[in-house]
């Protein structure tokens, strides 16, 4: 699905829009990280301080959810979280587009998480034990449990991808509908008839107030919340794959 509210401000011909803006997010993240880590100081100031605070949040989350082994997975989780958060916030800038409102981007992130946590599980406990764990505790239930577990594992990347995509796209459709409503009311007011002016002017003001005062803060909250939930669920899946090794 292409951009809903408006076509994005700049587009490279021949390149899909979500890919262009994925590159933009990558450039933003690389420049910010390079600027923050250019002159590392023992007592951080400015941008370095900010980035350290952000990464410490990820570290404390990893310690809480995954446990003492969690810090190994900081690169994966923090990269996913920062990428998704920046993409979500990029969609709020007029004229730009959120890469996460295209299902290809979210599906790519979800597939990375899917293959990674299986790889971690197989690495930690070996292929045989990992498959045995899928079969459940009782041997005569194994054929049933194996199928059920396979489907439950396949549903994880699907729900990860669709949750992020649905939230972002839903927000964009909502904004598009409100914008067209505001435009319609404003043009009714501009047409000059008496009921048009009497109803259209306060209606337009009300809609603009509603959008700026309520919808956009809500969308900022959703952008942070969805990035948090994506990271949280990835951590939970990794924790599940590791924990089975410790408590067989």
């Amino acid at each position, binding site marked *: *699905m292409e951009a809903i509210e408006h076509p994005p401000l700049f587009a490279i011909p021949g390149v899909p829009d979500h890919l262009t803006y994925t590159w933009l997010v990558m450039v933003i993240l690389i420049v910010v990280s390079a600027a923050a880590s250019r002159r590392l100081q023992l007592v951080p100031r400015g941008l370095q301080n900010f980035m350290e605070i952000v990464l410490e949040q990820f570290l404390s989350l990893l310690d809480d959810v995954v446990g003492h082994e969690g810090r190994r997975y900081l690169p994966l989780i923090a990269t996913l979280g920062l990428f998704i958060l920046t993409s979500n916030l990029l969609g709020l800038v007029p004229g730009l587009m959120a890469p996460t409102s295209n299902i290809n981007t979210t599906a790519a992130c979800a597939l990375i998480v899917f293959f990674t946590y299986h790889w971690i599980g197989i690495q930690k406990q070996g292929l045989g034990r990992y498959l045995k764990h899928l079969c459940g505790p009782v041997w005569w239930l194994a054929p049933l449990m194996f199928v059920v577990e396979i489907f439950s594992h396949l549903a994880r990347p699907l*729900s990860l991808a*669709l*949750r992020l*995509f*649905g*939230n972002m*796209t*839903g927000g964009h*459709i*909502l904004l598009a*509908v409100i914008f067209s409503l505001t435009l319609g009311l404003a043009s009714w007011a501009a047409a000059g008839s008496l009921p048009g002016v009497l109803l259209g002017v306060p209606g337009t003001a009300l809609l603009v107030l509603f959008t700026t005062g309520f919808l956009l803060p*809500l969308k900022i909250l*959703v952008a942070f*919340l969805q990035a*948090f*939930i994506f990271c*949280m*669920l990835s951590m*939970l899946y990794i924790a599940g794959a590791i924990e089975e090794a410790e408590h067989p």
Partner: protein
Amino acid sequence: MRLVFVLTVVAVAAVLAGPSAVWAAEAGASGGWVGPFAVIAAGIGMAIASGLCALGQGRATASAVDAMARQPGAAGRIQTAMIIGLALIESLALYVFVIAAILLFVQPVK
């Protein structure tokens, strides 16, 4: 709360897209009768999904707030668990939203 907005959006979109779908079906001689029903199904399905999802999320939030009031010390952990639970509940409604969007915009069956 968000899903109520999504519901409103899809309802408005259904109202906007309904007549055009009917016109399209009438204009094209090969157009089937499925298109208008797909629009109706998208609206009603989203309504049912978001209504039931709101019920579930309301129950979950009520229990979480109750637990947080009883044990303020564990509020952080309860809140994290609540947010994960809400995300998992919401994803079920989002499946329906994606299907509704496919019915409205992609229109696999005309």
